[in-house]
């Protein structure tokens, strides 16, 4: 990189002639940066559009930082009271409000480009979280979390949780009624924690809700602490990705020991730049044309009003739904004068706790029940891991049902339904839906695997019926090419764990047998139903039935020319 020169003789490196070349040479002589650039420029990345989902998250984070920087220039994180003197919007003129809310209005209506920046910032936050979730789905369903990437999976989950924290702290800053409602729910959730809840609430709000401290505190968290940790973890996330090399989809020639793809320069630098401009462009377009979080609709915060359709941003909607689904009667217990509000504790603390725990432990759980200690760099096709795919879809189903339950009032008004009926349906679906989704997904996966087996063994149906001289009819099948076959046979279908017998040779009960037995039970849940990949022997057997003993070269050519037969349907 450092020598941007023409073809020169090796023994005498020529002096760079262009300006860029000279500048690069100057830098290289002082920092030896050429070594690093050479390394990165030649680094090979595998090619697939779904590997760009994480990039969308990264680039929306960049947009968040840039637009957020602009907003901090005008936002005043103060809960002091003021009267709004601005003319726009007319509905806010003369209202008593906090300085934070007034500065948000001022930023939106007086600062040039302020509203655009606010909207870009908010849309970016929604897209940031959405792309993180979609990226996680890609990683989960393709098994990219397996060794050696479990740590990076956890870093990713921390990034998602920090994304939630960033969204929540930012959402509460303008000090409008809706964000105040959200804070009030947070206050209630914190207070529901046994023993320490009330004290924690007083600590967070600096006294009883809402107090005078929460906006400046959230501001510091939002612009300093949370993005700081986010940046550090993003750096770690990317560093680990480069260090461990990127995973690749299965295909001919791709193994756990190589990376098949293109060099970073010029291919991926160009693609990433293109993607960055796409993300920036789409976010700017959304910010310019679609209004978001019109705080003046809700007005300055006042603890008394709550409007219909009060909901959090989409990534918090599952919590709202969880709270909405929880029956209130009989779930608030008073024990020795201490209130245990299970109607808040279970939906707002236990349920999200279960969801996040599942995400964190899953890679380790799967490795344990598979008995798998090897490195994996080739991704799984989702169908080849039916239990994992089923569990992932079950998880998403639970998440989506909770999010829909959080929107139950809007579903009721837009589809002319009874909100009570919807709530009951979701209460049942929350338990039944994931189980059903798991079962259906697993069956679909197994079905697809069997179809793969069928294809590998018998080839594609050609639709051509041939009649032999003896009157027999057969349909001609075209065999798969090498790439197609590789994709369908190169996977593992592990069997459930085999465990040592209950007693040793002398009939003494083995220590740890009970635990092994339980792990085996879980392993059966994962791998009892499985479709094994086609073995070469099976291919040979499939081709040898009937009168065609084996696939000779001439026959294959004839088939490819569309004139012969290789196998038959029975």
């Amino acid at each position: 990189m450092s020598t941007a020169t023409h073809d020169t003789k090796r023994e005498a490196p020529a002096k760079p002639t262009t300006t860029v070349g000279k500048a690069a040479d100057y830098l290289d002589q002082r920092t030896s940066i050429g070594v690093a650039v050479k390394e990165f420029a030649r680094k090979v990345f595998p090619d697939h559009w779904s590997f760009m989902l994480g990039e969308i998250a990264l680039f929306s984070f960049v947009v968040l930082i840039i637009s957020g920087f602009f907003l901090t220039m005008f936002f005043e994180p103060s809960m002091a009271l003021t009267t709004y003197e601005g003319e726009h919007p007319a509905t806010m003129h003369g209202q008593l409000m906090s300085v934070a809310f007034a500065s948000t209005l001022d930023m939106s209506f007086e600062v040039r480009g302020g509203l655009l920046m606010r909207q870009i910032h908010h849309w970016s936050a929604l897209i940031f979280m959405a792309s993180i979730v979609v990226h996680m789905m890609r990683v989960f369903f393709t098994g990219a979390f397996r060794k050696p990437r479990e740590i990076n999976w956890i870093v990713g989950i921390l990034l998602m949780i920090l994304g939630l924290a960033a969204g929540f702290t930012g959402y509460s800053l303008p000090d409008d009624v809706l964000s105040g409602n959200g804070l009030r729910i947070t206050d209630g959730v914190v207070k529901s924690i046994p023993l320490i809840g009330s004290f924690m609430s007083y600590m967070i709000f600096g006294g009883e809700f809402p107090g005078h401290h929460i906006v400046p505190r959230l501001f510091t968290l939002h612009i300093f602490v949370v993005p700081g940790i986010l940046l550090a973890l993003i750096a770690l996330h990317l560093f680990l990705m480069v260090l461990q090399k990127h995973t690749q989809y299965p295909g001919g020639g791709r193994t756990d020991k190589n990376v098949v793809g293109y060099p970073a320069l010029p291919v991926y630098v160009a693609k990433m730049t293109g993607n960055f401009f796409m993300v920036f462009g789409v976010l700017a377009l959304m910010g310019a044309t679609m209004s978001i979080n019109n705080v003046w609709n809700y007005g300055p915060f006042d603890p008394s009003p709550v409007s219909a359709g009060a909901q959090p941003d989409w990534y918090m909607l599952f919590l709202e739904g969880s709270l909405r689904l929880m029956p209130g009667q009989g779930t608030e217990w008073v024990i020795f004068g201490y209130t245990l509000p299970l109607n808040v504790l279970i939906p707002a603390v236990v349920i999200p706790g279960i969801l996040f725990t599942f995400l964190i432990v899953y890679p380790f759980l799967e490795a344990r029940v598979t008995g798998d200690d090897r490195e994996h760099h080739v991704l799984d096709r989702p169908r080849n891991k039916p239990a994992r795919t089923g569990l992932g879809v079950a998880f998403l189903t639970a998440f989506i049902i909770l999010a829909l339950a959080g929107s139950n009032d809007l579903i009721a008004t837009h589809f002319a339904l009874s909100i009570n009926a919807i709530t009951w349906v979701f209460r049942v679906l929350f338990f039944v839906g994931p189980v059903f989704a798991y079962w259906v997904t697993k069956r679909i996966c197994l079905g697809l695997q069997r179809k793969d087996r069928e294809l590998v063994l018998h080839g594609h149906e050609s639709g051509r019926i041939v009649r032999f001289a003896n009157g027999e009819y057969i349909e001609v099948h075209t065999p798969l090419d090498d790439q197609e076959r590789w994709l369908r046979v190169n996977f593992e279908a592990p069997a459930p764990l085999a465990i040592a017998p209950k007693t040793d040779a002398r009939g003494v009960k083995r220590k740890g047998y009970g635990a092994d037995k339980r792990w085996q039970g879980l392993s059966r849940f994962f791998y009892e139903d499985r479709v094994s990949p086609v073995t070469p022997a099976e291919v040979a057997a499939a081709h040898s039935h009937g009168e065609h003993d084996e696939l000779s070269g001439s026959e294959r050519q004839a088939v490819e020319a569309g004139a012969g037969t290789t196998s038959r349907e029975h």
Partner: protein
Amino acid sequence: MKALAARRHHRLAPVVLLLLALLTTGGVYAALAPSTAKAETVSTADIETGKKLFQANCATCHGANAEGTDGVPSLVGVGAAAVDFQVSTGRMPMQMNGPQAEAKPPQFDAEQTAALAAYVASLGAGPAIPTDEQVDPTQGDPSNGMALFRTNCAMCHNAVGAGGALSEGKFAPALWETSERNIYQAMLTGPQSMPVFNDANITPDEKRDIVSFLVEQREGSAGGNALGALGPVSEGLWAFVIGLGLLIGAAVWIGAKSS
């Protein structure tokens, strides 16, 4: 003065004084008391037409003399405003039984509606149809209307009147299309699940402020498409549909480029 003073011991003087006092009290009361039922310019002919219309279209449920039947309210004393609201928005006559009577294209023209209102108003005093001035949004204060709306109305109708759900399939309708007069009448008469906001609760001027606030909302958002003014759920939905849709489309496109 002397002549008057001379007669103050007349035996009829207390009676005259009493009459005067009564007249004054009555007069002051008539001048100051909230005037609920203004009969305005209703002719008996209107009332007759209204009665005929009522008996043909409403009496099945509300009773021959609007006295109400089992589960159907009496209309004696609901006033012209209630009739005008229900009939001019098409809610009455009701199309079918359901969680609540829904708005539909009105079945009667303005003249027939006025006749019906006159007939029902003649049955007993009730709130009258507001005047154009009372509902003129340009005379209201939208800022005060905002404060009143979010304290009294937003919990059902949404912060800017986009509507919201109530229990068992009932709902508070969106107010984008509702006429100023109908908004005022709804507050005055409390149709269906809605509570009555009488003039002591929210004064006529304040009602006009609320109307003014709601009309202000119809201009749309300064930020672009309002996305139904439904808040974060619709924003999240569009973030996925438009934002992530475009970006994943772009990723597929870029991914397909070099290879």
